[in-house]
């Protein structure tokens, strides 16, 4: 498990490694070491990215060793995270949301609900997933300097 600068994180495709995603997002969004309750951008992104990385580990790498690279880009309106893995190609559109109570199978549904955009491209035998999260209006935003503006106030 290694931090690679502020805006990039490379982790092994294991459940325990996904615990690095939250602190990394807090650093990317300048939230300090603790999540800021005024902004749910980081917590929404953390849940979606943890779900996605678990899917990559379980299905993309099928439990085999592999790594996942996350690259964050903060802009005026929110956060985009590109997640790159070398697992098997997978089309999320082939999986429908559960329509009855079941134990498993909610990960993709949650990712779809938490992201404003979620798409994948295949480049150089790698999957490039793009997850877009808009900052919630009023509660928080991201100023032009790439820092979170808390409580909807002026930066």
């Amino acid at each position, binding site marked *: 498990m290694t931090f690679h600068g502020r805006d990039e994180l490379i982790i092994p495709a294991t*459940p325990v490694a996904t*615990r690095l995603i939250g602190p990394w997002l807090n650093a990317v969004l300048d939230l300090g070491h603790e999540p800021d309750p005024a902004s*749910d951008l980081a917590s929404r992104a*953390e849940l979606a990215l*943890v779900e996605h990385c678990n899917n990559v580990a379980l299905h993309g790498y099928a439990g085999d060793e592999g790594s996942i690279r996350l690259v964050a880009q903060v802009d005026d309106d929110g956060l985009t995270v590109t997640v790159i893995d070398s697992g098997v190609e997978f089309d999320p559109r082939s999986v429908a949301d559960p329509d009855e109570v079941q134990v498993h199978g*909610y990960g993709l549904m949650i990712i779809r609900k938490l992201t404003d955009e979620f798409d994948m491209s295949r480049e150089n035998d790698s999957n490039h997933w793009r997850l877009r999260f808009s900052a919630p209006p009023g509660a928080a935003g991201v100023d032009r300097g790439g820092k979170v503006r808390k409580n909807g106030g002026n930066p």
Partner: protein
Amino acid sequence: MVTVVRLVVDGRLDAEAAPALRDAINAHIERGVVNLVVDLASISFVDTAGLAALVSGMKRSRQASGDLQLVRPTSTAAFRVFELTQFDQIFRFVEPT
């Protein structure tokens, strides 16, 4: 007399922690304790792997004429997975004291 076992979970209930909770729930049900309360009041994060352990336990306990109730997480972020999957309408929640 109905025996109710309370399991307290704190920190993160994710893919790393879920197997231990699932095993603990199953162990109680296999011993005939089918009414359980899982206290999530102090939990900071729940993902669908953690949710799966709870759903599995709820189904098993209800099949045995019991129930698995949850103490509601105080963290909005930790409760989010229940809302997004609508399991907030399926589990019976107890408010934290």
